[in-house]
Every structure is written in C-alpha cells, then in structure tokens.
C-alpha cells in the first residue's frame, strides 16, 4: 500500500493562486545580513500580505523562502477570487511603495507577482497541484524569457520589479469582470512541464493609481 493511500483525500477547491517573490532578497540578506535586514523584510512582507489579504479571502499563506504562496477563495464565485487576488496584490504594491519611502534603501521591498486561477488540493497550510506549479512558472518569467517567446514585447519593456503577471485564465476574467485594469500581452510562452503555448499578460494598474503611487505606474508602463 502506498503511503498516500492512508491519507484522507484532500479537499479540492478552485482558488486564485498568487506567488509573491522578493526581488534580490538573497543578495540583500548576504550583503546587509539576514538578522539586520533580511528577516525584517520578510516579516514586513508577511504582515502587509496579511493586512491586504485578510478582507479579500486569503485562505493560505505559505513561505517560499524569499516570498509567499498565497491563495484566495470566494465561496460565491471562483472568478471573484481572482479579482480579489489582483486587488490584494495592487494594494500590497501600493503599501510597499509607501513603506519604501519611509525606510532605508537596503530595507526597501520590491516584488514580482504572478496570479493564476485553478483547482488545487487543500493540504494543511499548503496547496498542491499543477496549477500551483503554473503560478510559480509565471512568476519565474523575466526579460530573459522573452527571446524564447512568440510575439514577445521587447525585453527592455518588461519591468524589473513591482509588476503583476497573470495567466490567460485570469486575463479572461479580468477582461470580462474588471475592465479598470489594463492587460498587456507579453507574448506566448512555453512553460516548463506544461504542453503548448501560454499567453501571459502584464496587469497594469488602473489609471487613478497614478495619483496614489506614481512610481508604481511608471515602473509598469
């Protein structure tokens, strides 16, 4: 009997999956020290994620070492979970911009974010399944990925930090239900372990955000 046979079958739910990754966190920790800077950055991020996620259906928050895997759930509508997740990510970025103005340069937080929606296995304090892998693949996309894409944007136009990428599934939901966010295709990409071509989108903040956080809009446009 396999070890997994003894375990109860995990609950399967459709959740919005967010991967948030701290840009150059390892480098920063090595340069300025884990106890002096690194742990505070991660704690601050955890605290901010909790604040923005709690009221938007955040159900799972798991450390990935230099970031977090988050999932959002909406009991009424799976699609709304995706919208809440994108809202939470932009609110997180706004708060981080405010925070970055108040802290020393080495303690600044900069993020890469990716949002996907799909069925996941609910395991204690964690999530499993191919859609989780898909969200991580999206987060791994960088300028270096674009020469291997079809119809790519010029690599120089891909932001280095503080941006939100989303899958076709999430882009479809946003274009139908939340038109205040602009979507820009970055190209069709092959994602490791997944067959076929996937169109990946950059989610651009709503125009009104320019007043709240000009840096955010400037970085992403």
């Amino acid at each position, binding site marked *: 009997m396999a070890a997994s046979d003894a375990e109860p079958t995990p609950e399967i739910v459709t959740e919005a999956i967010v991967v948030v990754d701290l840009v150059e966190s390892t480098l920063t920790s090595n340069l300025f020290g884990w106890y002096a800077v690194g742990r505070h950055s991660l704690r601050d991020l955890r605290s901010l994620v909790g604040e923005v996620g709690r009221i938007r259906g955040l159900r799972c928050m798991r450390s990935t070492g230099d970031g977090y895997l988050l999932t959002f759930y909406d009991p009424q509508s799976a699609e709304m979970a995706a919208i809440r997740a994108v809202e939470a990510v932009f609110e997180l970025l706004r708060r981080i911009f405010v925070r970055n103005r108040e802290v020393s340069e080495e303690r600044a937080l900069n993020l890469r974010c990716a949002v996907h929606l799909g069925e996941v296995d609910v395991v204690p304090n964690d999530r499993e399944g191919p859609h989780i892998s898909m969200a991580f693949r999206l987060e791994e996309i960088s300028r270096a990925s674009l020469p291997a*894409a079809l119809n790519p944007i010029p690599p120089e136009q891909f932001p280095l930090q503080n941006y939100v990428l989303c899958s076709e599934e999430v882009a479809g939901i946003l274009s139908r239900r939340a038109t205040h966010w602009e979507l820009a295709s970055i190209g069709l990409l092959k994602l490791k372990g997944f067959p076929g071509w996937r169109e990946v989108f950059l989610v651009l903040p709503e125009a009104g955000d320019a007043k709240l956080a000009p840096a955010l809009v400037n970085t992403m446009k």
Partner: protein
Amino acid sequence: MQAAVPVGKSSALVFCDMAGTMRLFAQEGDLVASTVLREFVEHTGRLGREHHCLMIKFIFDSFLAAFDNINDVMPFVISIQNLLSTNPTFVGRVSGFHLSLHYGNVVFVETSYGSEVLGEAVNIVALLNEVARHLAQPYEIVVSQAALERMPGDFQARAGASESHQFKRVGNVEFRRVNLLGS
C-alpha cells in the same frame, strides 16, 4: 546605433515542434538529448537557408520559419521530415515533428537579441501546431485555409477535408491536414 525600421509583409509561416523531447531527456539523458537538439538546429537551419527562408527562430525543440514565397515551404518541410529517416542521430530517437503552416501579415524587426517576427499570424501558426500535436498523423502538416489557397496545386490536391478550431482571442481558424507523403 540606429535601430532597423520594422518591415511589414505577407509571409508564409512554418512552425515545427519536435515530438517526445521530454521523453528523450528522461530516457536517454541530457547529453544525448542536447546532441539531438544541436543536430536539429544545425540541419533545419541549413535546410532553411537552402530553401530561401527569410528568418528562422529556434525555441528549444521547435522553430518558427518565415518565407517570402510559399512555393519554397513544402520542399523545406519535406526535407525536414526526411531527416527522421536519414539523420543517424534522429533515427530511433525522434518520433516525429508536429508541423503547421499559415500565411498572413507579419512584421519583421531587429531586436536586442536578433531578428524577430511579430503579428497575429505568428500566434495562429503556433496554435495550429497544437492542433497538429493532437490531430495530425506523423506524415501530415496542418495548413490553414489562407495558406492552402496560395499553395501549388499538387499540394492542394493532397489536402484532407476542411476542419476548423476555435482559438481563444484569435477566433475560428479553418485548416486542412496535408499529406507529406503524396497521395
């Protein structure tokens, strides 16, 4: 340095994807698989030049090639297909190629990493390659109706029945499967 001006033109686009690459890496190891991929790039690149290919973009185990003259495409595709039986590195290792062809407007640009071809036609030929993966026999190429209408008559005669597929954000695309072996 001044960037080259993008050039828009109607072109024939071929997409070729090597079948079973992941299995090759898993079963034969990365050294053998890398050798196969290197041979794939060298030989398809050479055949592209021989058949007047405008540009060829390699993406791991696949490539996108653009042609000015659609009459050059099928001889190119058949020569690629012949590699399966003539190239000793491929024989017994590569089970086939998924092939698709489309004709449409594209823009050729010079980028920081080399030549690039852009346009919805690129998406269509890549999406048709997914159709080829699921529907086509190893000796078939999936050809869009737009490309088929411009192909030489002898290849048109090899086309199967009209089929279509609805692609997200692109819409309905009509295509046929064309036999590369003849009648």
